[in-house]
């Protein structure tokens, strides 16, 4: 048998007849060039095994969320065009730190049972924790220092930590708690690998949450951005 790349390729692909394979085996004993070609090919395959790693943890959640958003967002947008609530917008001159005061006022009003989302008549109210965190949003402003550092508070008997980030110039607030959060009644529950993950939209706000059991931190994030961008943000923040 003479040397040829086609012969080496066919041998490596297991495509030679039994007789040709025996002949090629014999050839390899005497031909340094073909032997090296076969050896290098097998060595490379062996090395490439190291790259057969699984997808990063969290990517499946991210994809599941993105698909659920794609499935839920379009019809919801079409059906509710112009009817969804708009959240209170920060008034000119209002200092970012004032959002905590506003949230406290919101909670007092909530406790007194006198408040509903402005413009959300007909929609069931969100759980107090979700509503209070959403009320801290001041779209277009930098996060308050206290929120950037991480604010601890108790809302409706549940301890939670709230932290704010500025993502591409847009504020994102993340709340975490050792207890699962109540899920907003208008949410879309995801049945992916994350237990009890949910998403919801409220006006310009997008929300995504994951409830975990066994003392693990549950969390949800609120942001002023299209739902489709939320999986990337959640991944960036290490939440999924």
């Amino acid at each position: 048998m003479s040397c040829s790349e086609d012969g080496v390729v066919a041998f490596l692909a297991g495509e030679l007849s039994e007789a040709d394979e025996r002949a090629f085996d014999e050839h390899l004993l005497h031909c340094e060039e073909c032997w090296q070609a076969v050896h290098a090919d097998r060595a490379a395959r062996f090395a490439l095994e190291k790259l057969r790693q699984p997808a990063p943890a969290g990517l499946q959640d991210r994809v599941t969320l993105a698909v659920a958003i794609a499935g839920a967002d379009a019809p919801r947008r079409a059906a509710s065009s112009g009817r969804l609530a708009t959240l209170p917008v920060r008034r000119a001159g209002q200092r970012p730190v004032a959002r905590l005061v506003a949230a406290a006022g919101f909670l007092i009003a909530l406790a007194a049972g006198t408040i509903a989302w402005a413009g959300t008549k007909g929609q069931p109210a969100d759980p107090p924790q979700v509503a209070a965190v959403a009320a801290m949003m001041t779209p277009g402003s930098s996060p308050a220092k206290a929120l950037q550092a991480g604010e601890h508070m108790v809302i409706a008997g549940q301890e939670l930590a709230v932290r704010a980030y500025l993502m591409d110039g847009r504020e994102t607030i993340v709340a975490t708690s050792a207890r699962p959060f109540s899920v907003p009644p208008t949410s879309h529950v995801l049945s992916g690998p994350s237990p009890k993950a949910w998403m919801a939209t409220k006006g310009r706000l997008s929300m995504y949450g994951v409830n975990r059991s066994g003392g693990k931190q549950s969390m949800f994030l609120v942001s002023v951005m299209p739902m489709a961008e939320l999986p990337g943000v959640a991944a960036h923040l290490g939440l999924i």
Partner: protein
Amino acid sequence: MSSKVNDEDRAFLDAALPHLDVVYRVARYASKDHHRAEDLVQETYLRAYAAFGAHRGDSTKAWLVTICLNLARSEGRRRARRPAETPLPPFQDREAPGVSVPEEALANIDRGSVSRALSRLPEDQRLAIVLMDLAGHSASEVADMLGCPRNTVLSRVHRGHKRLASLLVEEDVTR
């Protein structure tokens, strides 16, 4: 009332999520922008989801991988139109020399070295290797995806393997 993921979403996820590892590997190594791999995977699944109703193929894996490849190429073309960023070391497109591959050189080679060596291969060889060795496709499937004869795929894989082994030995020597 909370709603569950609907049946259409569920059907798509059941069919497509088992191939997530493979799609990720293709996204990670088919293009040189490793940092965008997760975004590329998400984009792949969203495109696939949008087209799932029309998907009649036998192999969902091959279908997803093809979408991922097309997106990676589009991204590559967009990048090519931009000013050059950080140039990679020049690659001489020559036949890999006969190389003696010491067993010990490859036994201790780390994943990063293999990844770097793979990224230095010519695109046609790298793609063929990614699709066959990392995604587990047959030569015939890869030929369909790349639109070239099956023997061409096998030749590209073999040449890529030889070049890769050579690069890994070089890296081991210079380490």
